[in-house]
């Protein structure tokens, strides 16, 4: 029973953490589906289980009940077809940037030879604007540059799925916008399915094809927004009427998730009819 039209699929996923005060439910009957080569952003109130979601999709953790499917296969353990990047770029200080980027190649069996991988690493460095930094140490790079290097590492082994857990969260506004554009560049170069966890609504609208709003804990998919901004997107699009109305919708949904508004009093705009709420 595979459904190959979706790259990532979560079916009825429920998960709780064990704590001293008893089980802490984080996900409650979460359903989600991300088509191949599309970009899905997940937003929601803090502590709603967004990072749990990344750990489930990457296979680092298994849900209590429900199923996670990746490329038509049920996820039971980590798999090398996944790339990950976190808010903390976690570069290994004792390695050069190039060696850091090549790290996954030491774990994953890949048809690429070492020379090919190195060539690819240099190419990715060029793409993210780190030309000439291959032999530098992480300590010589700024926060934004480290995050760029971390992005290169996460896709060096050509993963089918890239999981990003707030990778731009700790960066300043300008660097963040720069990196958004870099993300678009990377995906133009080689398409991959992307799951982005973020707190930034503008980021979700600028980058994603669909934005999933998670409810408060225990979380389910409260609302899915299809972002229909035509590509190639520019930062200016974020200030156009369409984006503004989508952002208003998302902001309202977040307030609903936080319990500060109800579904009824949605902002009046022409966008609501193009979105669908999940049952």
């Amino acid at each position, binding site marked *: 029973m595979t459904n190959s039209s979706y790259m990532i699929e979560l079916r009825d996923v429920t998960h709780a953490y064990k704590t001293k005060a008893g089980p802490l439910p984080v996900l409650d009957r979460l359903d989600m589906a991300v088509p191949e080569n599309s970009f899905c952003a997940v937003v929601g109130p803090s502590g709603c289980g967004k990072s749990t979601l990344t*750990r489930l999709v*990457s*296979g*680092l953790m298994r849900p209590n009940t429900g199923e996670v499917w990746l490329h038509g296969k049920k996820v039971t*353990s*980590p*798999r*090398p077809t*996944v790339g*990950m990047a*976190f808010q*903390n770029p*976690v570069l*290994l*200080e*004792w390695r050069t940037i190039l060696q850091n980027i090549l*790290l*996954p190649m*030491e*774990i*994953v069996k890949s048809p690429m030879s070492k020379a090919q991988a190195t060539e690819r690493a240099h190419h990715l460095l060029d793409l993210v604007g780190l030309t000439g930094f291959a032999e530098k*140490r992480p*300590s010589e790079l700024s926060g934004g540059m480290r995050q760029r290097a971390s992005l290169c*590492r996460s896709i060096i*082994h050509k993963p089918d799925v890239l*999981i990003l857990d707030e990778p731009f969260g700790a960066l300043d506004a300008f660097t963040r916008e720069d990196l958004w554009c870099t993300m678009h560049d990377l995906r133009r170069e080689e398409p991959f399915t992307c799951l982005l966890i973020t707190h930034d609504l503008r980021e979700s609208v600028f980058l994603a094809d669909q934005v999933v709003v998670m409810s408060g804990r225990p979380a389910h998919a409260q609302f899915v927004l299809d972002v229909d901004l035509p590509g190639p997107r520019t930062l200016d699009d974020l200030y156009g009427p369409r984006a503004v109305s989508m952002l208003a919708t998302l902001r309202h949904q977040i307030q609903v998730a936080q319990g500060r508004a109800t579904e009824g009093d949605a902002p009046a705009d022409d966008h609501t009819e193009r979105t669908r709420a999940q049952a």
Partner: protein
Amino acid sequence: MNDTLRKILAPTLFIVGILAVWEWAVWYHQLPDYRMASPSDLIPRYIRFWDLFLIKSWETLWRTVAGLSLAVVFGTLVGMIMGFSRFAREGLYPILVGFNAIPKATVVPIVALMFVGQHDFNTILIAFIISFFPIAVSVSIGLSTLEPEYRDILRSLGASNVTIFWKIALPKTLPEFFGALKVAVTLAFIGTNLMEIVSPHGRGLGDLFDSGRINADYPLMFAVLFALAALGILLFYFVVFLERIFAGWAERSPG
């Protein structure tokens, strides 16, 4: 000032300065050498007993290094167990702390009785016991404080725990390990000399110190202290040298 020049010149200047003040103080107060020997009293002792100094230094040095090496192997092992298993950490920690709190001078006679006549073994054992603690603790702390993202970055690709240990946990712990090793070096010397002095068996610089005491040759006792200091410095900087090679990345370049 030139960097290498300063690195040699600064300590030399300070050593010469301290020796000069010392020499002057002894001369000024007209202290007899059984109360305070002066640096100039030491030189004749080194000249007279140079062969003894070389032999005894070697005995002290190799036994210290042997004890320290054991401490590195077993300290790292225990540190690894404590770093990876919370159960083992919580179980072993109080025992380690309690063991470390025992003054080692009291352990020496016990060890000397336990293994009568095994002088080299006893000495190495004390050096090992005394220098084991900081290494085990630092390795365990280094491993247990490894940020989960570091683990996840490899685990999400399907890497085994062994791979994660070799590629990330071990190198990341090296700076802490070398920090502890620098402390352990001097501790190991203390251990060796405790055994040599508290349980005399005719070996090591401790023995030379003891014969100075018995023969009322006070300048000789001072001369031994200086030889010990020199050995300590030697071994310490050897560790620094190793640290530069294996954990040089942790050193921030100035500026």
